[in-house]
Each structure stands twice: as C-alpha cells, then as structure tokens.
C-alpha cells in the first residue's frame, strides 16, 4: 500500500509541475522541432534524388524520436538528481521509509508518462511536416521504447551518482547528452560490437517497427532477447553504481552538501 501511495505522490508531483511549467516545456519542444526541421530538410536537399532515400528520411524521423526520448530521460534524471541535491530535497527523498530505491524507480516511471505525452505530440508534428506517416503500432513500440530507455536510465543513474560524490562531474553530464546522439547514429550493421552499448540496438529495432511496419512478433526472437539482456544489464549496472555512490556520499556527508 505504501508503495502505491508513494507512486501516486510522485506521479501527482510530475503532473503538477508539467501543468505549471507547460510553457517552458512547449518552448523546448519547439526548439527541438526546429532542430529537426533543419536536419530533415538539410538531408532532403542533399540526397533527395536517390531512390532509396525515403528509407533514410524515415530513419531520421525515428532516430530523432528516440533521441528526444533518450535525451529527456537522461538529462531529467541526471540533472534532476543534481538539482535536488543542491536544493536539499534529495535528502528528504532519501528519508522516505518506503525506501530510496523505490523513490528513484517510481520517479522515472512517473516521468516516463509525462515524457511520452510530449513525445507523441512531437512525433505527430514531425510526421505532419514531413508527410512521412510511420507505423504507430503501440503494442510493439511501447515495450521496445521502455527497454531502450532502461539502458539510458542506467547511464543516467550512474552519472547522477558520480555527480553527487564528485561535484565536478556535473558539467560532464551536458557532454554525455551528446554522446547519446552517437549511440543512436551508430552503424550497428557495420560494427556489430556497437550493439553491446546501450540504445543502439533498441533504436535499430524501433526503426524496423516504425519504418518497415513489422510488429514486435515478427522481429527475430534473438534480437529481442539481446535487447532485453542489454537493457537489463545496463540498467542494473547503472543502478548498482548509483546505490554504491549514494553510500559513498553518505559516508562523506555529501548527500546534500553543496
């Protein structure tokens, strides 16, 4: 019961903040949309003639979608943690008798729905402008997105934890956001080793669903299992590192120390 109550409290907080800061969110969405337009029409102008170019454009839309997802997930979590440490509320979260682990997990789950709403809006906008209507098979996409983001959250937890202990890592978070782009654009086909990193494999499978119109049941089971293992591993490692680092911070008296 306590778990449910905690989850509801966190979810409610997200929605209150979303409503109250709707304007800010919309402004950043427009910013992202403009970047998208530049990339899309840039690519269009460069390679518009080639017959297989449609597929590339689809890939750009999907890649962009996954990127915004990953970016929001990553920076929300890592930056959010640093900010709460600075503002002092992280210590209050830590003192929840339901447990800090659950607070952290519920927080990302409740953020996910807010993020999903905005990303769907962005996607519709992108598809409308480009005229490329992709397959929105929700049953196939949702699990793929969740798994893909799990790996990203693992990275965010680890860097957030690092920032609690080593305050200078904070500036590093901004840089890592762009590393995420690299992972999405990673040519997994040519360098299979890249599959072992977070995000790359998930992005590839999401593209197959959205651009090629496959359902999740038509994807190779080995690929799905690989994604599952990859996500669980990255998330697990990241979260473990986070818990370890929080304890280091507790040891040094740094949980709310800025």
């Amino acid at each position, binding site marked *: *019961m*306590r*778990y449910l*109550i*905690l989850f*509801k*409290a*966190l979810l*409610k*907080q997200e929605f*209150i*903040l979303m409503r*109250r*800061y709707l304007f800010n969110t919309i402004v950043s969405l427009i910013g992202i949309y403009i970047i998208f337009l530049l990339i899309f029409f840039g690519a269009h102008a460069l390679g518009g003639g080639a017959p297989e170019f449609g597929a590339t454009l689809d890939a750009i839309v999907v890649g962009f979608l996954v990127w915004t997802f990953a970016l929001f997930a990553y920076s929300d979590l890592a930056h959010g943690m640093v900010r709460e440490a600075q*503002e*002092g*509320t992280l*210590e*209050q*979260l*830590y*003192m*929840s*008798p*339901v*447990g800090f682990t659950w*607070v952290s997990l519920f927080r990302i789950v409740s953020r996910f729905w807010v993020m999903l709403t905005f990303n769907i809006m962005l996607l519709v906008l992108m598809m409308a402008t480009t005229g490329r209507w992709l397959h929105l098979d929700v049953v196939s996409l949702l699990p793929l997105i969740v798994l893909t983001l799990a790996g990203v959250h693992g990275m965010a937890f680890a860097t957030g934890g690092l920032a609690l202990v080593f305050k200078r890592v904070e500036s590093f978070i901004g840089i890592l956001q762009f590393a995420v782009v690299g992972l999405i654009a990673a040519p997994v086909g040519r360098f299979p080793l890249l599959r072992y990193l977070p995000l790359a494999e998930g992005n590839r499978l999401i593209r197959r669903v959205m651009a090629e119109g496959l359902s999740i049941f038509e994807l190779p089971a080995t690929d799905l299992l690989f994604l599952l293992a990859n996500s669980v591993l990255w998330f697990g490692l990241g979260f473990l590192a986070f818990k370890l680092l929080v*304890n280091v911070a*507790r*040891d*040094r*008296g740094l*949980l*709310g120390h800025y």
Partner: protein
Amino acid sequence: MTEPVLEVRNLTKVYRQRRGEDVVAVDDIGFIIKKNEVVGLLGPNGAGKTTTIKCICTLIRPTSGSIRINGTDAQRNTRIALRHVAAVLEGNRNIYWRLSVRENLEFFAGLQGIRSGRVRSYIDELIEMFQLKEKERTDARNLSRGMQQKLAVACALVKKTEVLLLDEPTLGLDVETSHELRFALKEMARRGERTIILSSHDMSVVQDICERVIIVNNGKIVTDDQVANLLRLFQASAYRFEIEGRLSKQQERQLEERFEMLKISETDHHTEIEAQLEDGNRIYEVMDILKAGDSRIRSIARKEPNLEEIFLNIVKGGKN
C-alpha cells in the same frame, strides 16, 4: 512516559580527507531521549550538531556507534527506523520550491507512505497553526524566508513521526518570524505530542523551547541536563561584588588564579566583579582578597544567570 524513543550510543563520525587531517566531527557521543521530551542540542559552529542529526536520520553513515529509534537499529533496519523520524535540515532547502504550500504538504505525506485522505484535516490544522492559510496556493519559492521555514517544519510534522529533528530552525530568520516559529514550536512542545530534538547555537532559542539541553563542543558532550537545573545551579553560584575604586594588580592576579569565569569591569568610581562560586563559603575568600587590599565593598548580590553565560562557561571549561 519513560520508554526511550531515541538511543544514541558511542556515536563517532570521522570525515576522511584525501588531503590534510581527518576531521573528527562527532566523538563518542551518547544520550537517551524519552518519549515526548523536547531536547536542545546546543553548541558553537563546527561542534558536530548537524553531523549528529544527520547520523540519526541516516543521511550520514556513522563511523562507529549505534542509533536506535523506537527500538529499531537505524543502520540495520533503516526503512523501519525512518518511519519514526522526520527532519528539517539546515537552510531553506527542505521543500519543493515549485510546489505550493498545500502541494508540498500532500507530497511529503505521500513520501512517508501516508494516504492524503488520511491527513487532509491534519494538513488544514498545520496550515492554520503556522499561519499559512492565505498563502496556501502560493509556490514555496514566492514565500518569505520565514514562511518557507514554517512550511518546512509543517512538512516534517505532516509525516506524523514520533521523533522530529530540527537543525537550526530559526537561523537566518528575522526577529519577528523567529518568534512566530518559536511560538509554534513551544506550543507543540507544550502539547507533548512529539519528541523533538532541536539544534542551535542560539541559547535563547533552546532556553525558550526545550526542557533539556545537551551541550556539545568539539564533537563531545560537555553537559546533559534539564535547562531548569542548569539555571538553578548557576543561579546558586553566580555572584556579583561591587567595590569602590579599583583593584590593585595583585588583587586581580589573586582573583584570577583562584576563581573561574571571572569577569572584572571597571568604571571611574567603582569596580564590578562577577564570579562563579561553586561553594557559598568561597564568598569569604573573595572578601578576604578584597579586604587585604583595603577595597571597600559596596554590595554583594546573586546574579540572574542565563543559558548563554552558562553555555560559554561550560564550553570554555570543556576546551581545557
């Protein structure tokens, strides 16, 4: 009334430094606090108050020692222990600045695992008690510093824990809001519903609110007693002598050698001597010294003590 709610035993915290010497912030501290006691943790800057409080609410991992809250070991069964303790930490950083007063209160109830329906009327009561009714829907960041602090205390209270830890709750508040907050805390102490530990380096706050005081300095407990006892003890032994003219150098030296906490102040025509005399008979020692130098004594009186002087005295005594 006598069951211990908080037991701190041999608590030590050493901050390891990569460069320079390790800092021993808390050095083998121990105390037991009973249900509904209101205890002040008094000490100068750097005494180890914050570290002690954060160890109790598990935000800092002690180097050694044990902490039991309502009988639960705080290090082994952290989550169970945390059901019984809420804390307002130093500074104005315990609430969400972008949530309103009521939203903050509801959120912190939820964080504690309490359904909002079950605390709705209590939230109303808290808003009333801390005079936040008009600001109920205002974002915390737009409140005055004093109101933010009141909200922070209310957010700790809404968790309905037995133990409430307050680290420097009146620090940085202007006189008026500080008094308002003190009034609310006193009211709570009077009702006897919570066990409160309040840290401060301001003795008047402790004297005002707490019945018992633990004085810490350099990470160690120097005194642990009822405030009333301390005041009485010092009242019995603090004397003020007034003499005509001035003391000779020799008299001054003799007095300084033999009495602690001596204060000598001279004006044009007379001199005031304040001294702490553990034994009433020592008055005669002072008089002997004064007489030997032919000083004329105008008056001898008992001095009204305040916690501030007691504190300074004890802390100075604790250092050497």
